[in-house]
């Protein structure tokens, strides 16, 4: 089959006509007859005992149909929220998170009661009338203090605050002794809000007569929601239909798990006999939806005088929040990727998860991989600075160059050309010229900085052998291809698109594989009532490398059957049938031909070969043999004003390699958007809690700087192309690349700019006040 007419083509998105015209279908756009609005009463405190709850006034308020608390839910929800093994199979302490507080609240924003009312404003009004008396308890806010002996605990009666502690590989002092220079540094990864522009929201509609639940929810993982929420609420999976969206307004990892409100709304619908809608407000979102990052890394890096990297010791401390995130331990992957794109004699790593009285941390775009990139790219620059070597040179000297490359933890990088992407990025940036400008500028009190990030990532989750023990379920991916009698095709996928453009790219894959017109393919996702029995969702840049391959597999099964039927109709042997661009002909007789549509029609008719059933459809699950390993080289150019601490991000160059590209326009869009989030972390965003009171100080978007168009620099994008040997499409994944790469490039540039002051490291966000203070201190 020698056609690639659609794969690789810049096709404009089929999602867009509805979205640009105001006809998207987000959860809040929907209403159901008899629907009630749910408002969640939340704890205003980080840690407190609930002394009493008085519901009388709320229940008497206009439009209120019901007010529920723990007492109403306790017999209707089994257990609590799940916590996956991820990269930490054995955890020390996993506090059970029941979806609503009983007698103790452990983070600001924890649900305490829910109000159901006829109108949205009535529910909000009545929620104000729920009177809860609290006795405040000491709040555990700082992870270093939380690890000290005798620290107050985040949960009453807990032995300590240690959620997990795991050494992946111990330090090897003998190897470190081989280093001529050793540098230690503490690198902070501040807490971040994911901020999908659409907050979470849902409509739960339980039919008490048919005993069926339909749950529309803004989620990345409808099948997992069905599995976890449905079964915990006493329903068989077959009784539950979850529809993610249909449109979901961004997620970035913050919608890839079940949440308390989903359980509460389902039971509220059951108890009240009404459909129940809950739409998260933004201020609510900042406490009720998981946060990202929130980590401290202590690193020690050793190298030879000639720049040869020797050993790296890493300890990761993660602020887990009050409950371990459902996939919170995924972030420990930073420990396994700490070596980055380089050859090391030894990498030691250890992760410690610490419970605090805050919102849970869970994956946020990149999840562990931005942290790994940041620490290793900073480590390499620290060594380069120490021995007086150019940051580009030290990278070249230590890059992995032979593939497959097995890193120090046994992970196998499938393919790469790290020198290729770095060379290209430096050329586009005009690196040598920039260095000259920098030297010249410094003579005149101007502080230009050039930062590199030669990033790698693990994605395409993942082989069942690796993910089943980690996630508790194999993260393969499913699809179903149904060819209708007239030859048009519906493709159902287990992934979920919330900005990734799957409707377009997946249709491109199916069109090419089946050789049918792109327009004849309908792409469906997000509804558990359709398609294969199980879907695995979209996260970890997995959708094309795993889901796309599943589509290809299903299409090939269809082609295979169609070929048999064509042979029968054309009275030839199957071996003599050639399938080319949607047509089946007999080898050597191009006039003996049947179009795909004709075969489709025939497949539902009479006179099939003996033993062949009617129909032309197929289901596939794709289990990849390995992860995929995208990579690239980014260059950030900044100028720091030493008098104000202001950072002017002048230019950003990104050369990325995600293997074969299905649609270059969409790939570029993903990269740019990802870079923007990395820049946001590097320069602007930080979740701040008050350590004494436990209150969230960045509690609205007024206090949290999500960058606008004004903050984004000029970006120049290019790519190299190193196909993945892991799958037949040769694809890797690109959804998180920009975010994984960018913070390191920007911070390396900032440090480079202020290095004349003797500053060796700058933490994030590199805000004017932080830099101004550092420069002032350095000057004194």
């Amino acid at each position: 089959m020698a056609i690639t007419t659609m794969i690789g083509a810049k096709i404009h998105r089929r999602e867009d006509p509805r979205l640009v015209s105001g006809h998207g279908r987000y959860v809040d756009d929907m209403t159901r007859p008899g629907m009630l609005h749910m408002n969640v009463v939340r704890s205003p405190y980080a840690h407190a005992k609930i002394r009493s709850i008085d519901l009388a006034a709320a229940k008497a308020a206009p439009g209120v149909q019901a007010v529920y608390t723990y007492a109403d839910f306790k017999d209707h929800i089994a257990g609590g929220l799940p916590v996956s093994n991820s990269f930490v199979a054995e955890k020390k302490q996993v506090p059970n998170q029941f979806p609503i507080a009983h007698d103790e609240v452990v983070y600001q924003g924890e649900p305490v009661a829910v109000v159901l009312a006829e109108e949205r404003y009535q529910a909000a009004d009545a929620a104000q009338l729920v009177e809860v008396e609290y006795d405040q308890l000491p709040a555990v806010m700082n992870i270093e203090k939380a690890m000290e002996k005798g620290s107050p605990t985040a949960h009453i009666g807990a032995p300590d605050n240690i959620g997990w502690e795991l050494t992946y590989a111990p330090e090897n002092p003998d190897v470190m002794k081989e280093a001529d220079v050793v540098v230690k540094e503490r690198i902070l990864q501040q807490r971040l809000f994911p901020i999908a522009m659409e907050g979470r929201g849902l409509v739960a509609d339980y039919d008490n007569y048919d005993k069926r639940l339909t749950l529309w929810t803004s989620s990345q993982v409808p099948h997992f929601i069905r599995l976890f929420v449905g079964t915990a609420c006493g329903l068989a999976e077959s009784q539950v239909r979850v529809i993610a969206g249909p449109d979901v307004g961004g997620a970035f990892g913050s919608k890839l798990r079940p949440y308390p409100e989903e359980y509460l709304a389902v039971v509220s619908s059951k108890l009240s006999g009404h459909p129940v809608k809950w739409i998260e407000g933004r201020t609510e979102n900042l406490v009720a939806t998981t946060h990202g990052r929130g980590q401290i890394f202590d690193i020690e890096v050793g190298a030879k005088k000639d720049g040869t990297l020797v050993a790296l010791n890493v300890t990761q401390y993660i602020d887990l929040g009050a409950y371990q995130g459902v996939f919170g331990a995924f972030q420990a992957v930073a420990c396994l990727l700490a070596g980055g794109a380089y050859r090391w004699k030894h990498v030691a790593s250890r992760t410690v998860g610490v419970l605090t009285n805050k919102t849970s941390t869970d994956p946020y775009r990149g999840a562990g991989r931005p942290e790994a990139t940041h620490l290793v790219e900073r480590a390499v620059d620290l060594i380069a600075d120490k021995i007086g070597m150019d940051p580009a040179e030290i990278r070249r000297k230590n890059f992995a160059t032979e593939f497959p490359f097995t890193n120090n933890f046994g992970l196998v990088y499938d393919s790469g050309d790290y020198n290729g992407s770095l060379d290209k990025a430096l050329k586009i940036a005009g690196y040598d010229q920039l260095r000259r400008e920098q030297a010249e500028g410094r003579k005149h009190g101007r502080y230009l900085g050039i930062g590199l990030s030669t990033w790698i990532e693990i994605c395409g989750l993942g082989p069942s052998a690796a993910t089943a023990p980690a996630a508790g379920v194999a993260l393969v991916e499913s699809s179903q291809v149904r060819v209708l009698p007239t030859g048009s095709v519906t493709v159902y996928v287990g992934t979920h698109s919330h900005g990734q453009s799957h409707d377009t790219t997946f249709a491109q894959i199916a069109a090419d594989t089946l050789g049918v017109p792109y327009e004849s393919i309908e792409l469906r996702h997000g509804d558990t009532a359709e398609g294969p029995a199980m879907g695995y969702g979209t996260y970890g840049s997995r959708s094309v490398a795993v889901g796309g391959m599943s589509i290809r597999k299903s299409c090939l099964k269809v082609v295979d059957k169609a070929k048999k039927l064509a042979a029968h109709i054309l009275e030839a042997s199957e071996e003599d049938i050639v399938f080319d661009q949607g047509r089946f002909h007999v080898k050597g007789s191009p006039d003996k031909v049947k179009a795909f549509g004709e075969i489709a029609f025939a497949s539902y008719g009479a006179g099939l070969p003996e033993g062949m059933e009617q129909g032309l459809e197929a289901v596939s699950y794709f289990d990849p043999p390995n992860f995929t390993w995208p990579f690239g080289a980014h260059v950030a150019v900044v100028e720091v004003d030493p008098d104000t601490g202001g950072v002017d991000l002048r230019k950003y160059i990104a050369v990325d390699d995600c293997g074969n590209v299905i649609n270059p326009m969409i790939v570029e869009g993903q990269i740019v958007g990802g870079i923007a989030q990395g820049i946001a972390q590097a320069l602007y965003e930080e979740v701040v809690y008050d350590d004494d009171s436990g209150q969230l100080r960045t509690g609205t978007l007024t206090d949290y700087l999500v960058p606008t168009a004004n903050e984004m620099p000029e970006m120049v994008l290019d790519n190299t192309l190193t196909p993945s040997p892991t799958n037949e499409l040769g694809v890797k994944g690109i959804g998180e690349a920009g975010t994984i790469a960018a913070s390191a490039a920007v911070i390396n540039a900032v440090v480079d700019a202020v290095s004349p002051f003797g500053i060796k490291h700058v933490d994030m966000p590199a805000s004017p006040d932080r830099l101004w203070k550092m420069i002032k201190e350095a000057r004194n």
Partner: protein
Amino acid sequence: MKHKVATTVNGRRYEHEVEPRLLLVHHLRDNLGLTGTHIGCDTSQCGACTILVDGMAVKSCTMFAVQAEGRSLATIEGMARDGELHPIQQAFWDEHGLQCGYCTPGFIMAAAYLLATNPNPTEDEIRKGLEGNLCRCTGYVNIVKAVQTAARTMGGAKAPAEKKAAMATGGE
């Protein structure tokens, strides 16, 4: 106590009795069924709810419905005409100026106002003109391109001012 509010939205007249505290954005979405105008925050930062009120870009979460009495409003649903996308909508499509699409209606309405008042903006003017709107997916690069493309297709400085204003507001 409810108040009568009469508005013209996308050329159609509506009359409703509303609570005085009802936000205009909720009026549009819940009473008029115009759900293309989105809500992305509760502190007027994100601009997802941007519409035009008498031709001026307004975050509809910052107005009460009663304040729209007698006003002419344009929302995203009124931009396309006779099955043809407005040039700004077309440009967002052509330039891949959206991913999840949630912020897009607000950006398109803000861009409509920008181009009505400044038909041929520089890149800096576009970025400043859109600084009241947040997007988390695109990094803004393609949004800026889309507005540049729309400015070109709408005729830039060459088009008569009246015509441009009419296009921006969706008026005749």
